[in-house]
């Protein structure tokens, strides 16, 4: 029987980087194929090529017997391919039915809203999606919003669904619901490509697994009979998660003390972190992390509570005052907050410290010492760029993050707040970031490491807290971690 989808020899480069280096892929009807790989392995690129968002440099795509080439998403959708994006492509200000009708000829030139609403209700019932056509997307929790995307795919009679990292925004109960929906779709004969870097989900759901590494297929196997270790090895060529190494030094005094901190979107939260300790804050994204972290860093106003760094309450202090008190902050948004992409490496290295030496004398900036300092930091943190004057947006994500880390750590902070510090980085860069966290701990700082990637948190944290619905659902020392309990804490937020 011919495959539903055949991709052969897909090559796609970005400058010197070969994101896809001759990839072959087959998917059958009524099959769930897992596409597994680390960040930077080429999974997203491959799917964007399939869906028509990027043209391949070479290779062929045959879907239901017809070749797809030089196509745009409109043609891919007309052929029967639907993509459920990692960052939902929905119009928040519009209703569910309006989002379904968008750019869909079947909804008519003059919109047949009532008909469409009825179809939404019917499909929602049939697949257990529980969606109200007149609900505003902005009012739906993330798990439901994802279902709007799935609903669109179903209504447009897609035969192949591509889900790109679908569980990154979901709580464990929502994940279970999603897997049920996907199994129902498989039973109806749809083909599904399930992209993920999380091994356990892929093993639970998929029929077959294809593993990508550095742009190439490094392994292909049916799930039945494959072992975790085998697949992990195909993914990274090494063991996936390092075990936690407890610190070799004694803990110092409490350096960061947060009491009953509350603001819009979270609280009250209380935590204490000692010098020489890493507190990991795990949790599904969207449970108040960004609000909490920005309130700590001074980018959002604090409603109530105190933040004490080495006996100095900074809860209502400015960002600059917090830096003086010894707080360093690595924001999740690398491109628009942590860095100014159009400025040079040197200017970014001095971004937060431009008001004191060596970068400035009084109101004036001094060039010579600034360049020297930049060269010194570039060497120490292995920032690969042609020179301190290189514009940051030309650098890879890993090197960009090194600039952020270098800047914050060079201040020898008392407290570091890191949010999604290894997001979107390839394994080498991720390793760099995690190692620096550990080094900072050894230097006696208090580190708060907030991340939705549980493996990272498990690897470096001495204590782990779980945030759900803006509060701490639970806390445990690393040595006593029970993964099931953590899952329960994380599920504080229902679909």
């Amino acid at each position, binding site marked *: 029987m011919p495959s539903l989808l055949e991709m052969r020899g897909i090559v796609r480069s970005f400058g010197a980087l070969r994101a896809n280096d001759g990839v072959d892929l087959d998917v059958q009807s009524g099959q769930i194929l897992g596409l597994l790989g680390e960040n930077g392995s*080429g999974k997203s690129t491959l799917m964007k090529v399939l869906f028509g968002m990027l043209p391949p440099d070479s290779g062929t795509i045959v879907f239901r017997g017809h070749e797809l080439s030089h196509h745009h998403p409109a043609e891919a959708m007309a052929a029967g391919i639907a993509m459920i994006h990692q960052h939902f492509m929905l119009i928040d200000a519009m209703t569910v039915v309006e989002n379904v009708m968008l750019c869909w000829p079947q909804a008519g030139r003059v919109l047949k809203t009532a008909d469409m609403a009825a179809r939404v209700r019917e499909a929602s019932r049939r697949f257990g999606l529980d969606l109200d056509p007149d609900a505003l997307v902005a009012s739906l929790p993330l798990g439901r919003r994802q279902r709007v995307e799935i609903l669109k795919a179903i209504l447009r009679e897609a035969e192949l669904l591509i889900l790109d990292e679908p569980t990154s925004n979901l709580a464990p109960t929502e994940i279970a619901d999603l897997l049920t929906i996907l199994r129902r779709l498989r039973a109806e004969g749809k083909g599904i490509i399930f992209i993920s870097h999380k091994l356990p989900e892929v093993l639970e759901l998929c029929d077959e697994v294809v593993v990508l590494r550095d742009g190439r297929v490094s392994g292909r196997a049916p799930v039945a009979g494959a072992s975790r270790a085998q697949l992990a090895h195909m993914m990274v060529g090494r063991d996936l998660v390092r075990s936690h190494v407890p610190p070799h030094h004694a803990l110092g005094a409490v350096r960061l003390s947060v009491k009953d901190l509350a603001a819009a979107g979270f609280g009250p939260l209380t935590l204490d972190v000692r010098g020489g300790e890493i507190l990991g804050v795990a949790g599904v994204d969207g449970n108040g992390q960004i609000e909490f972290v920005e309130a700590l860093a001074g980018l959002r106003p604090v409603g109530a509570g105190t933040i004490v760094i080495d006996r100095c309450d900074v809860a209502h202090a400015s960002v600059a005052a917090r830096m003086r008190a010894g707080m360093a902050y690595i924001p999740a948004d690398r491109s628009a907050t942590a860095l100014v992409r159009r400025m040079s490496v040197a200017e970014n290295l001095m971004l937060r410290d431009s008001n004191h030496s060596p970068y400035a004398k009084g109101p004036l900036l001094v060039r010579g010492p600034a360049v020297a300092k930049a060269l010194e930091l570039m060497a120490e943190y292995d920032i690969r760029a042609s020179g301190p004057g290189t514009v940051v947006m030309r650098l890879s994500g890993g090197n960009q993050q090194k600039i952020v880390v270098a800047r914050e750590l060079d201040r020898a902070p008392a407290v570091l707040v890191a949010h*999604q510090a290894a997001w979107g980085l390839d394994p080498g860069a991720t390793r760099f970031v995690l190692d620096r966290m550990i080094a900072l701990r050894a230097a006696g700082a208090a580190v708060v490491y907030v991340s939705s990637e549980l493996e990272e948190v498990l690897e470096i944290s001495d204590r782990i807290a779980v945030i759900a619905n803006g509060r701490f659902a639970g806390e445990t020392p690393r040595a006593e971690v029970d993964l099931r309990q953590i899952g329960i804490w994380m599920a504080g937020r229902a679909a």
Partner: protein
Amino acid sequence: MSNPASSLPAPASEQIRKPPRYNSFRLQLRDNLAWRILAAVVLSMLCAAALIALSGHNPLTAFAAMAVGAVGSPHQIGAALNRTTPYLLAGSGVAMCFRAGIINIGAEGQIAVGGIGATAVALIWPSALPELAIAASLLAAAATGAVWAGIATAIHLGRRVHEVLATLLLNFIALLLVKQMLVRPLGQFGAGFLQSPQLPAATRLWRIPEVDAHFGIVITVIIAAGLSFVLWRTRFGFALRVAGNSRPAAAYAGFSLPRLTWSVMLLAGAVAGLAGGIEVLGVHRRLIEGFSLGFGFKAVTVALLGALEPMAVIPASLFVGLLEAGSLSMQRQIGVPSALVVVIEGLTMLFVLAATVRRV
């Protein structure tokens, strides 16, 4: 709540372009940028030439007449320099605002009220202190311009009205204010039209004898150089540039966005007000209605042509000043309407905008 990664670009692999080759501290593409702007100017002149040809005139003779009209005699060069002065001043102030991401198009209003301030002080300045008359009048001009910009800033920051609309609407109000001032407190009784009495001789700006231009051009070049210095060599300028690139980054860097906005707007307002004062003291020798018409948009034009770099705004405003000075004789001698210059300016701005967009 949206995933923080939704504000991140696609994985870095998809964003790598050809590796660059610069080592200088200053920003990217400065040389490349100059060529592109030059190309934009040339292209718009070609379009203008086409327009001239279409209406039956010879473009070459028209441009020649324009050139002669602009620089043909020392007196004409002086006139061109006089025109350049307000454009340069207001334009470099506007360039600073744009650098900070604030689109201030209120130069026209700020120039107008600056004229009011200079006229008022000039008329009431005691004749016992002639040496300080000019300085006092110009200081008043700068102060009134800053106040006018301050009103727009207060509305913008306090009530979250977009700065374009706030500064624009205040322009109209300022022009009417000038007219009103010329009716009652500052008007010349008995004159047929709206004007103030002629300003005392003590407030006459010094002149550059060879070209018969007033001293304003020297003042403005110094100020433009000073603004450039501030932009590149001071912490304040660094903060402005960061804010213009990314507001979240500026907050993260510890800069206060409201304070930056106030500072740069007051600065631009003062500079534009000063331009108004110089126009009144140096060119017209009295306050007349509509003396600032069109200057606000000219300021934006030369700011763009100068790629928002005050030092480059100097040649840009000189170019525009020469164009305009020459256009009148082109109209007289060849019959090509002087409004063509405005067309050239508009086209040039469009081409510069299209050619100098920075890719995200």
